[in-house]
């Protein structure tokens, strides 16, 4: 049983990874997931978080089998 964790754009470059799994038998909160997978990295202040491809607040709980994504502010569209 696991949580899938994804990283995008500059965050993926800084961490040097784009996807990993965290084995867990219980739901976890987002910061716990980050800290277990990135124990020596502070999450950037402006990091956005999505669970199962929908934006969530940082206080949200991550369920087993969820896809959790961390990414920097988005910059699509035209300048």
């Amino acid at each position, binding site marked *: 049983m696991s949580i899938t964790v*994804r990283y*995008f*754009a*500059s965050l993926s*470059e800084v961490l040097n990874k784009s996807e990993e799994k965290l084995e867990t038998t219980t739901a976890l909160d987002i910061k716990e997931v980050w800290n277990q997978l990135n124990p020596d990295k502070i999450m950037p202040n402006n990091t956005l978080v*999505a669970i199962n*491809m*929908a*934006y969530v607040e940082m206080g949200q709980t991550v369920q087993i089998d969820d896809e959790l*994504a961390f*990414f*920097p*502010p*988005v*910059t*699509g*569209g*035209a*300048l």
Partner: protein
Amino acid sequence: MKIKIIEAELNPWQEMEHYQANMTTLSGKFGATNIFVGTMRDFNEGDVVTSMTLEHYSGMTEKQLAKIIEKTEQQYAILDVLLIHRVGLLLPNQPIVLIAVWAVHRGDAFDACRNIMEALKSSAPFWKKENLIEGSRWVTKNTQGYQT
């Protein structure tokens, strides 16, 4: 309503012609179409930009864009929306995004198109990386649409 994320080059005018030719049920019903096309510039913040790489969160992008359009449809009296966004490698002068909104009245078409564009910029999971003459950089500043 149609949302497309494409890697191939985007020709907004061919897309419009093709999409509208197939909007047969709306024939004669819309009086106003507002279209926004965002195009890649060859400069940004004082530097020459030689190309750009657009990353996105495949799956979430489509979901988020659909949410934006649904919310806009609740807010304005609009009849149809076409939204196409490129990802991958882009060159200067190539279109990045096309947003087209059809409505009975022009006020709704203008407002809804702009609203979709602003929401896209602030919440659709796309990220731009600019390739400069030396090196590359992630775009971090998202300009406001209301500045002059």
